[in-house]
């Protein structure tokens, strides 16, 4: 295809020459208008329609500006074709490692779900029904079922936690940009370690649950909400507020994790109910659930105590 190259060569030269002076018509007349005239016209019309709709009166001035600046339109065309190519390559590479459809399920949330889930993470004691509802073999998306886990809340909470950590360190005059990166990677590494240990335990005890790796990331990531709550309590009310918020969020998170994982791990026993070998299994599965829950307060304390001193 020589057309994009033509546009690239044409746009490279005016860019080099356009440094000192931008309004010279002679510089722009030759090179870019000789380049792909059809493509330029194709890009003028969407520019016209986009610029024409919000700007009612001076629409003529907008069109004239686009026509008088073919370098910008050629550069825009080249840039958009480059962006499309890059997007295709990225999509192809990502879909080789991560199934994008499965990931989309975890981000299908709406604000009502987020509100209810956040309330559930802070106060889970009055919630009655913890079953994940199904719709013809596939679990319902988080939009329709408050018990479904998602990855939106953990990722947003992770970023909020990093910002809060930076703010807390700045209040104590201990901030520097490297600390922010260190805090972020420490939190991420602990979640990755927890997910790997959980995967190992689930494999060794042959627990055939439907917990995928994204589900484990979601359940591990819900502790960021507890961490945010704890750091906020520590910032607003000092050291006593920190310990009160830590206790409250630890208990709430432990209750939430035990009730949620009990449905997923311990209920898979009903599918393979053997007589003799089933006595050791429920105990070990209970140990996993309780150990996961007990690990949360430890890690919340470890990751937030240095922020609130």
């Amino acid at each position, binding site marked *: 295809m020589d057309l994009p190259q033509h546009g690239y060569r044409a746009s490279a030269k005016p860019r080099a020459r356009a440094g000192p002076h931008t309004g010279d018509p002679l510089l722009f007349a030759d090179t870019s208008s000789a380049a792909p005239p059809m493509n330029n016209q194709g890009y003028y019309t969407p520019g016209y329609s986009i610029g024409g709709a919000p700007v009612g009166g001076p629409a003529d001035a907008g069109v004239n500006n686009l026509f008088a600046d073919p370098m910008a339109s050629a550069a825009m065309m080249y840039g958009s074709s480059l962006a499309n190519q890059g997007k295709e390559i990225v999509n192809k590479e990502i879909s080789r490692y991560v199934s994008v459809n499965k990931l989309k399920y975890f981000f299908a949330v709406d604000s009502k779900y987020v509100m209810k889930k956040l309330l559930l993470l802070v106060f889970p004691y009055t919630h009655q029904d913890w079953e994940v509802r199904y719709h013809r073999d596939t679990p319902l998306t988080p939009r329709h079922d408050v018990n479904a886990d998602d990855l939106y809340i953990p990722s947003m909470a992770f970023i909020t936690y990093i910002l809060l950590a930076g703010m807390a360190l700045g209040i104590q005059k201990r901030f520097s940009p490297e600390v922010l990166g*260190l805090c972020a990677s420490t939190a991420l*590494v602990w979640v990755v370690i927890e997910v790997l240990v959980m995967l190992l335990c689930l494999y060794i005890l042959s627990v055939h649950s439907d917990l995928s790796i994204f589900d484990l990331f979601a359940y591990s990531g819900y502790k960021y909400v507890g961490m945010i709550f704890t750091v906020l309590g520590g910032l607003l009310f000092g050291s006593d507020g920190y310990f009160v918020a830590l206790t409250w969020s630890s208990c709430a998170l432990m209750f939430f994790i035990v009730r949620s994982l009990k449905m997923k791990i311990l209920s898979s026993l009903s599918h393979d109910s053997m007589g003799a*070998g089933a006595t050791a299994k429920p105990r070990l599965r209970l140990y996993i659930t309780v150990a996961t829950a007990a690990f949360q307060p430890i890690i919340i304390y470890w990751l937030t105590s240095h922020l609130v001193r």
Partner: protein
Amino acid sequence: MAFTLYSLIQAVILCVNAVAVLHEERFLSKIGWGVDQSIGGFGDEPGIKVQLMNLVRSVRTVMRVPLIAVNSVCIVLLLLFG
């Protein structure tokens, strides 16, 4: 403990190297974790030890060649950048 992603990668590489180094007939058979001792009962629930032995054997089989490449890269990087 402040971690970076690089220290996590280092820890994972060291652990996988440790599992890959366990020799089948010189060590694993001596302590009863050999390949011939894992085909136990044919129930649908293999025990913890059988699962662990399967895990060790599969890690050794699968990661043998990638570990050569990853270890070489690590050695070169550590020699160059300390």
